[in-house]
């Protein structure tokens, strides 16, 4: 795999990781996630034919469309910590994660025969997703964390599994998560049914 092609993409993923942690505006978050899905698609495109790789892009963007259908209140997006120091702590944590990812990716790549760029890109998203899941308690942030984590996993899994059905089902899982995210955003406002 050409590193000249993948290195800028890995850089873009790092920017998206950072942005997801510092941005609290709904529209910007959706744009960042859209770009992230585009990068995932570009990476997978180096392994899969266009038609199959497009499943990642279309599935991801459809998930975002479902999520974007009901914008949350601003307080449903902000972190638990006070704004300034909370952001500093989150960025520091992300920095540590990048250190870990860039340290262990070559070893994992050797152990599993998965190319280094794919392993690094995948691990960046997986750990960024885990960080979001660990930091945030808001349902919509949890869903964004899970979508990010699954995107990272899908990059790595694309190297070993070429099944169209699996790709389709994973896209369905992404969509399902987005539906659940949308549901969780509106559940408390729905009519009491118990």
């Amino acid at each position, binding site marked *: 795999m050409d590193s000249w092609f993948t290195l800028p993409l890995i850089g873009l993923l790092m920017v998206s990781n950072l942005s997801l942690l510092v941005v609290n505006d709904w529209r910007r978050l959706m744009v960042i996630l859209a770009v992230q899905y585009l990068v995932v698609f570009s990476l997978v495109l180096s392994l899969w034919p266009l038609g199959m790789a497009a499943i990642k892009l279309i599935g991801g963007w459809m998930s975002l469309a479902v999520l974007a259908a009901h914008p949350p209140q601003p307080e449903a997006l902000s972190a638990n910590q006070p704004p300034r120091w909370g952001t500093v702590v989150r960025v520091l944590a992300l920095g540590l994660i990048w250190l870990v990812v860039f340290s262990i990716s070559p070893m994992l790549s050797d152990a599993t025969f998965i190319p280094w760029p794919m392993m690094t890109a995948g691990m960046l998203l997986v750990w960024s997703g885990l960080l979001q899941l660990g930091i945030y308690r808001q349902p919509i942030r949890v869903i964004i964390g899970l979508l990010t*984590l*699954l995107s990272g996993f899908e990059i790595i899994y694309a190297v070993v*599994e070429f099944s169209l059905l699996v790709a389709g089902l994973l896209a369905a899982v992404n969509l399902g998560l987005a539906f659940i995210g949308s549901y969780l955003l509106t*559940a408390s406002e729905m*009519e009491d*049914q118990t």
Partner: protein
Amino acid sequence: MSAPLIWILFPFLVSLGLIFLRRFQKLSYAISAGLSFFLTLAALMLPLQTVFRLGPLNLEIVSSLSYFGRQLSITSADRLILVLIYSSGGFLLLGGWVSRAPRLLPSLGLMLLSVLVAALSVQPFLYAALLVELAVLICVPLLSPPGEKPGQGTLRFLIFLTLGLPFILFAGWALGGTGLNLTDTRQVNQALFLLGVGFLFWLAVFPFYTWIPMLSSETHPYSAGYVLNLLPPIMLLLLLDFLGSFPFMRGLPAFIAALRLVGVLMVLTGGIWAAFQENLGRLFGYAVIMETGYLLLAFSVPNAAGLEAFSAALIPRMVSLAVFSLALSLLRQARIPLTLTGIRGCLKTRPFTSGALVAALLSLVGLPLFSVFPVRINLIFLLAGESIPVMAASLAGMAALLVTVVRVLDSALRAPQPQKDRDEQLENPADLDSAQKPENWQEILFASGGILILVMMGLFPGLFLGGLPGILSAFPLLK
């Protein structure tokens, strides 16, 4: 006609229809529970792969359904698994009506059953991981129904079970996709590690079980009970299904040691935390954790007797937890706070409901005369033959839970709380009327029915549990 059409697609489509009927609660429960019982009977009676006459028609039910080159396959050997899933689902759905569970329970509950059956019957195995994830997504609206703010327990449930998906998919690839080379220990260890971590998340094994007490204390007890009653045993059946293709794994010392360690930690820590619980919802969560621990311990006995103990424990566990969650739901319905202080004097004011609560707890401890006793004593003897410390730790877990039962009994037997204190605990003044109302006939019927089943299963284990080891015929290679 094919078996997956009958036991997967048909209930799935009906459950979709039931979503639109959710306002007609009695009808929804009648259809979903009725269909579950019908599918149970069909699993017992309909011959598979054989031509039979139905009036003027000659019918044959083929066992598999292909889609995109993959198969959903239900054979005659899977009949008892279908009976187990749909009968327990049917009884649980029936109880949902009296416990005033969220309106989505009949539809999503039935949908969950059909998806779990699909996960057990899909080939190759890795597709089961995706179907389990679908089942998890179905559970979320059940645990966080419309009108309620989603709790942290529900979110953690979603997070932890979703985290299992990548590991199981990788394990499926490592074992199946590449054609496992058994002489390559590194490859076998990698596959085992991935499988193990995946099932750690799916089974909410120590230390990933923190979401269970959280979930059971913040959601409707019956919804939590429905999900926690069905998911762990079916995950373990999936593990059996997986191991059925690689039977050598069950004999690996590392695998057995790992199962035993997490099993005993779950029983011990679950019992100890339960002993200090004030909240009955959390207590239910710890009971679920302990029961999963016992299932893992039975699984860890590396011979046929261990698997038989595992399969025989499924029904008593389900019944005890179902009666427990039903009792909690009935108390909640009467606006009684689900705490040890809240249930003070309940044995006098709500004798059947509190009786069911105490009976379910006594059964879960494994005391004689109750449903879990025959299988628990068998497991203790099996563990004694394998490892005395593990057996002793299991007994310690049981003793710790017994302490809790004594505390619950003590609280339920005490004089009711002074009216002033009770009024302060109630959020809404209207709740006072509900708390003072006596039990209605439906509550009495279901609570006393639950107690009766628990006792009958304890008195006549052969009658109720004798056929359960037949479940293992679905996994002929496992010993």
